[in-house]
């Protein structure tokens, strides 16, 4: 998967006020506290160690943006599927076998030369897990959550996306249980590519709306 984001602005010094690196001592304290709570919950019969492990593994390995990439690639090659995706996203995504927790009510929004969509959750971290997996830390952090709604173009610029004034930026604040995914524009010179090859181009960031899809050289 491409990691060719133009994050030149990210090489700037992180704001020290927001430095969230835990010290080894803090991490150790958290490990101890969390282990204690886990053993309490297991002792009281609320959870079992095997089930906790299975759940964590599901989200660490089985779900991720490769799912959403398949949805995007299909929409690019199949106009009927794309139409269904834009009018009944939950069903269309379900056809590829994806759905469930934090994706029960999906809406897909399409990027065009005139409209650029970007998704955020200002109040917490809502994100379409079945198609994108768990969100990256930046999506859940104060700078993105706060600024995307008021100045999306500055956010996009930090991610290396410049938009003309003639383009309309639409910000989607995921305030309810509707989960949003962006259908990015298909890059040029990809007419020869099949669905599988196209899916490999689609990045998580493009489906959040902070990147365009590019063809790797």
């Amino acid at each position, binding site marked *: 998967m491409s990691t060719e984001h133009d994050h030149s602005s990210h090489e700037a010094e992180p704001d020290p006020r927001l430095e*969230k690196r835990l010290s080894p001592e803090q991490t150790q304290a958290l490990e101890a506290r969390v282990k204690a709570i886990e053993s309490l919950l297991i002792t009281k019969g609320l959870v079992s160690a095997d089930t906790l492990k299975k759940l964590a593994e599901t989200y660490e390995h089985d779900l991720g943006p490769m799912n959403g990439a398949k949805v995007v690639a299909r929409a690019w090659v199949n106009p009927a599927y794309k139409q269904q995706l834009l009018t009944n996203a939950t069903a269309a995504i379900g056809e590829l076998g994806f759905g469930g927790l934090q994706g029960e009510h999906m809406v897909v929004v399409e990027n065009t030369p005139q409209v650029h969509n970007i998704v955020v959750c200002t109040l917490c971290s809502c994100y379409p897990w079945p198609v994108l997996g768990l969100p990256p830390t930046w999506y859940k952090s104060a700078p993105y959550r706060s600024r995307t709604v008021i100045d999306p173009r500055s956010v996009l610029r930090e991610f290396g996306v410049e938009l003309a004034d003639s383009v309309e930026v639409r910000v989607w604040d*995921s305030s309810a249980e509707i989960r949003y995914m962006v259908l990015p524009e298909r890059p040029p010179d990809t007419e020869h590519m099949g669905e599988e090859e196209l899916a490999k181009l689609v990045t998580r960031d493009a489906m959040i709306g902070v990147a365009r899809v590019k063809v790797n050289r």
Partner: protein
Amino acid sequence: MNGVHDMGGMTCFGPIVCEENEPIFHAPWERRVFAMAMLAMGQVDTLDAFRHAVERMDPLHYLSSTYYEHWLAALEALAVEKGILAEEELTTGVPTSASSSARTPLPPEAIPAIVQHGAPCSRETGRVVPRFKPGDHVVARNLNPSGHTRLPRYVRGKRGVIDRVHGTFVYPDTNAHGSGEQPQPLYSVRFAAAELWGPTAAGRDSLYIDLWEDYLENAE
């Protein structure tokens, strides 16, 4: 609640810092907290109550802690409030009482079905007849509840247009406080950027946000 979590429109937080090729969990404790919160939450309280428990964190702690520390704080608070765990048990790790009922935890085989089915929030009961339709001009009410709400401050009092009727959904403002699901119509409402932010906003841009019917009023 007018908390620091309601941060849409703040511009003081500096640049967006991305960790390249970030792992899903940075440390074992994060993985444990994720799994525990997910599994225990359904037995402890609603998702809305969980979100509100995060919102009730000490604001300085909220802003200065990592993401899964928020989940840990919420899990601990709800577990204690609901009598699942005692405060002293959290610090010692030693149970002071047995579980009040004989519980059988979910087996690992139950996970795929739970993940695949999810927890839909749409309902066929409650207020199922929408008051508004696409194209209607509405204004977000100036509500400032002390409890949980999903109406952010940056939208209150602002004028928008109904873009889509999503259907009838569980209402978080009541569901977070044990006052029931009270399902009601949910709408996607479009706001012009200039309406929200004034003259510095890019003229062509817009924002869409999902708002429950009780958050909205007819615009004159």
